[in-house]
């Protein structure tokens, strides 16, 4: 019992929360960046520009089918020998953005594909250019349908930030490891705290997504 009280001392809890903030920071920055890159790549893949779309599609398929852990290793240990030396947080954000952009590109492409083809044709028929039709007519409808898929991607991104412990990014999981590194009796309390913290963040997101989904429908 004493172990549990010591494990959850004010100092340790503050340290965990600091880790949680870094986790959220990495997740939010990466999700914003990968929404931007993912949208561009998804639209390029959907638009079927000769050559370009095929190459983009091939790159998306390759990276989507690699483990995120491998990409993190590659960015942190591989890129320095090619002349790019990121620090741990930047490396985590970089790797997450590369991986999540490809995942989001696929979601965007199928989201655009799910919008009725007639919408594009009608917009073109009333005199809009292709990009105008895309921007004003197709994309708003596509994003609305994609909200659940995008939120579940965000949830998996938050969970995946835990993989960045391997390059000693100071996020939640790594901070927990530092705490139980001092005393093996803290292992169980720390894993319980990790499970609860990740669960609260991810589950509340999935509830929010469900509420939005119900309101939209």
């Amino acid at each position, binding site marked *: 019992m004493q172990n549990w009280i010591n494990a959850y001392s004010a100092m340790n809890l503050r340290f965990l929360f600091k880790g949680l903030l870094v986790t959220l920071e990495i997740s939010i920055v990466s999700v914003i960046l990968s929404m931007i890159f993912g949208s561009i790549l998804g639209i390029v893949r959907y638009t079927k520009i000769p050559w370009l779309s095929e190459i983009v599609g091939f790159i998306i*398929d*390759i990276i*989507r*089918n*690699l*483990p*995120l*852990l*491998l990409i993190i*290793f*590659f960015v942190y*240990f*591989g890129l320095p*020998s*090619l002349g790019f030396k990121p620090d741990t947080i930047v490396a985590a954000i970089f790797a997450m953005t590369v991986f999540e952009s490809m995942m989001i590109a696929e979601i965007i492409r199928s989201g655009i594909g799910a919008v009725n083809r007639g919408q594009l044709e009608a917009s073109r028929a009333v005199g809009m250019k292709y990009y105008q039709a895309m921007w004003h007519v197709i994309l708003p409808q596509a994003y609305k349908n994609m909200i659940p898929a995008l939120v579940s991607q965000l*949830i998996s991104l938050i*969970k*995946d930030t*835990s*993989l960045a*412990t*391997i390059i000693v990014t100071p996020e939640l*999981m790594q901070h927990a490891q530092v705490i139980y590194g001092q005393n*093996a009796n803290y*292992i*169980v309390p720390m*894993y319980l705290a*990790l*499970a609860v913290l*990740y*669960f609260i963040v*991810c*589950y509340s997101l*999935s509830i929010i997504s469900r509420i939005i989904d119900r309101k939209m429908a």
Partner: protein
Amino acid sequence: MLNLFVNNWHSFLTGFGWTILSSIVALILSLIIGSLFAIMEVMPNKALRIIGNIYVEIFRNIPLLVITMFFYLVIPLYFVKINGFTAGTIGLTIYTSAFIAETVRSGINSVDIGQMEASRAMGMTYGQAMRYIVLPQAFKLVIPPLGNQFVNLVKNSSVLAFVAGFDLMYQGNAIASQTFDTVNTYLVVGLFYLIITLPISYYMQHLERKLA
């Protein structure tokens, strides 16, 4: 790159073998466990439904790494000694089974409710109707999403590297730290993962298009 592979082909292939073994074991176990929880979630019995729901929601919302490390560190501390490979495969199984339960449940729900009612009207029991009428239709619907889960499972099996599970990622790290040729090592590791994941995900895309 070719040179690196020729010099270390034994380690790479060993890692590849452990990755495949762990993925297949975890797939089979999580298909069984996941389907059981999916069926629990659609049962008329409210208590079972709640248990199924809690299991799925808990393990879907906790990172795989937390589950795996928990098994790797806590089980040997208080119960039996298990190696990294076993701990990793248990973690993978539990994590994936929650996703498979969710997939199978949505498959069962998308089978027309009239199928169940008609079977019951013909005099089948609930279990028979589930077993012979609803589940076969549901499984056909969920094959593409299950295939994608398998791809995720293979990718996720890289967490075995955290717990010394001898898998591809673990061997890759060992080779990278011996040869200092990180770029080429990780490229070879990536190619090995693609050998498994790319064909499956292309085939699943093809199936999805055919079913749609």
